[in-house]
């Protein structure tokens, strides 16, 4: 690549971009100015409030509560290790994804340095700051590792799969470790746990339901349609009430299912029905010629589904699937209405503390930002995935 254009230096790049896109003609300039004034007037109130009036002390004082709720202090290190495993795997995935590019160039290193300095001066105790630094190092190390050994990329799927039971074990304990009862899994920890497990479980169930709906066998088809249509006709909050409040009434005395397990089951079964319809859309988008060509090669029909139809169908509906997952993630907030103390639940209990009376705006804005970060992360990852699949 030759850099012949003068726009490679960042400063002139920004100026040129501004001139070309915002001030190219007089009416374009006018529109830009009007929009800026409008934005300022609209956001001024929020800015003034956020800087001058809001009392962010409620957030700072309750940070551990928001994130891990009533998880016992002495076992925090287990959650740090969980986070470390996840960040290392994310780093490796990212490194493999960027295999053709030079990763640790100057901007990246500077950014990492800035983040490290910010972490060091955060208003936290020393131990969490050191943990955060370790997390940053693990992320960077994972990225480097992934980039270095990109050729062995297929092991990554196995690593993600294996991390799942290990993470659950770290959180829940047992098997020789001090166990942490599920009523102490609260805050963002519970939000993430229920969302991720529901997403991972509902995906295969949804795919099977979609295939079942198209099955040649009338019984399978009918049962699939029945399930999908019944669940889609019920509100999620109703299903959660059923799972958490009413189910124990029907079960014989002494039989106890964990509340978190029941919540995850409700979310999973609900999400699977919607996923099934999304996947069905993808299945219908695969041209019949694909199946005929595969048949003509002598492939058996389960293989045709696995190797030819599903890869194309799922690729076609990635945006819809990710939309579904984002919806599921946000729907976990409904769990706070049936007595599970996830991120919204813990916020409500913090707001019930007389010390923080009336701090609604601060708390819910903070919680909103947390939700947004994760939803945007999913959206970002899905766009990278789509781009990658389109290039291949």
């Amino acid at each position, binding site marked *: 690549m030759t850099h012949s254009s003068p726009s490679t230096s960042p400063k002139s790049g920004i100026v040129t971009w501004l001139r070309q896109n915002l001030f190219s003609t007089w009416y374009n300039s006018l529109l830009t100015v009007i929009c800026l004034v409008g934005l300022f007037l609209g956001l001024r109130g929020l800015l003034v409030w956020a800087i001058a009036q809001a009392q962010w002390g409620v957030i700072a004082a309750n940070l551990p509560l928001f994130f891990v709720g009533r998880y016992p202090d002495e076992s925090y290190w287990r959650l740090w290790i969980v986070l470390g495993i996840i960040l290392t795997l994310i780093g490796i995935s990212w490194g493999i994804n960027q295999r053709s590019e030079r990763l640790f160039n100057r901007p990246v290193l500077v950014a990492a340095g800035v983040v490290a300095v910010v972490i060091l001066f955060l208003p936290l105790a020393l131990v969490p700051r050191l943990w955060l630094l370790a997390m940053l190092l693990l992320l960077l190390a994972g990225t480097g590792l992934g980039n270095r050994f990109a050729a062995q990329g297929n092991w990554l799927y196995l690593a993600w799969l294996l991390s799942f039971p290990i993470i659950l074990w770290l959180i829940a304990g047992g098997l020789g470790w001090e166990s942490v009862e599920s009523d102490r899994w609260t805050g963002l920890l519970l939000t993430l746990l229920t969302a991720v497990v529901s997403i991972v479980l509902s995906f295969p169930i949804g795919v099977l339901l979609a295939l079942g709906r198209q099955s040649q066998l009338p019984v399978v088809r009918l049962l699939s349609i029945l399930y999908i249509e019944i669940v889609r006709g019920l509100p999620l909050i109703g299903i959660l009430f059923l799972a958490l409040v009413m189910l124990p009434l029907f079960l014989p005395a002494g039989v106890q299912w964990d509340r978190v397990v029941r919540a995850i089951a409700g979310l999973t079964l609900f999400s699977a029905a919607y996923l099934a319809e999304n996947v069905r859309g993808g299945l219908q988008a695969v041209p019949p*010629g694909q199946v005929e*060509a595969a048949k*003509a*090669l*002598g492939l058996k029909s389960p*293989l045709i589904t696995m190797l030819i139809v599903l890869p*194309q169908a799922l690729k076609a509906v990635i945006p819809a699937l990710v939309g579904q997952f984002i919806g599921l993630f946000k729907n976990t907030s409904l769990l706070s209405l049936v007595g599970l103390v996830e991120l919204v639940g813990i916020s409500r209990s913090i707001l019930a503390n007389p010390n923080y009376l009336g701090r609604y705006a601060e708390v819910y804005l903070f919680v909103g930002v947390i939700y947004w970060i994760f939803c945007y992360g999913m959206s970002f990852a899905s766009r990278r995935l789509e781009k990658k*699949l389109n290039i291949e």
Partner: protein
Amino acid sequence: MAQKEPSLVSEQTVEGDEIIIAEQVQKWYYNQFHALRGVSLSVRRGEVVVIMGPSGSGKSTFIRTFNALEAYQKGRIVIDGMEVSHDVRNIEAIRQEVGMVFQQFDLFPHLSVLQNVTLAPIWVRRWKRAKAEEIAMQLLERVGILEQAQKHPAQLSGGQQQRVAIARALAMQPKVMLFDEPTSAIDPEMVREVLDTMRSLAQTGMTMVVVTHEVGFAREVADRIILMDEGLLVEEATPTDFFNHPQQERTRQFLSQIL
């Protein structure tokens, strides 16, 4: 697997010369439209048979009954000694011996060219990947696509895609190749490269049944030409007789329209 191969060879010698036998094949669509009204055809090993006819005459439907992509209701079809029946295992065995090339290529868009060609040998024939890839590369070289092996189908021209489709079918080492209007969806300037590939395939002694409108190809490569119309076989003749001395009035009418 190792014991299966010799038994197939001995079957061949017992079965004799005719690899495709179709007797009075009849087919109805939705119990109403009578698409095939009793068509018989037998094809000898190494023979190239071209089927011509106006659209809607049932020629594609007919060859698609050979590998059970279309079911038939009456008559009998035997491919290499195996009867085309409702038995799924039988159908899969027949499809492994019968390669097919489609009008719209129908390559798998999510796989590379090489993966398209190696898919069936790996999953159906259970070959090792290395062996499948080695044979695939030989086939891709034969059809002139070797440099494009790592590309995806969408990056190739129509003619190149169709040649990949031919290589994909050949990778299963079939005994019969069926071509369903292989050049009808290809830009005119690319038709020739596909026909050349088919011509050189015919020279290797492959048994081929080709539905096509390409008169030049039929005249030059075919051992026999068949005209179908309204679900019936109208005329069956050598290329010379077919084009110069057609016996049926319907054939003369058809030829006057396409020549």
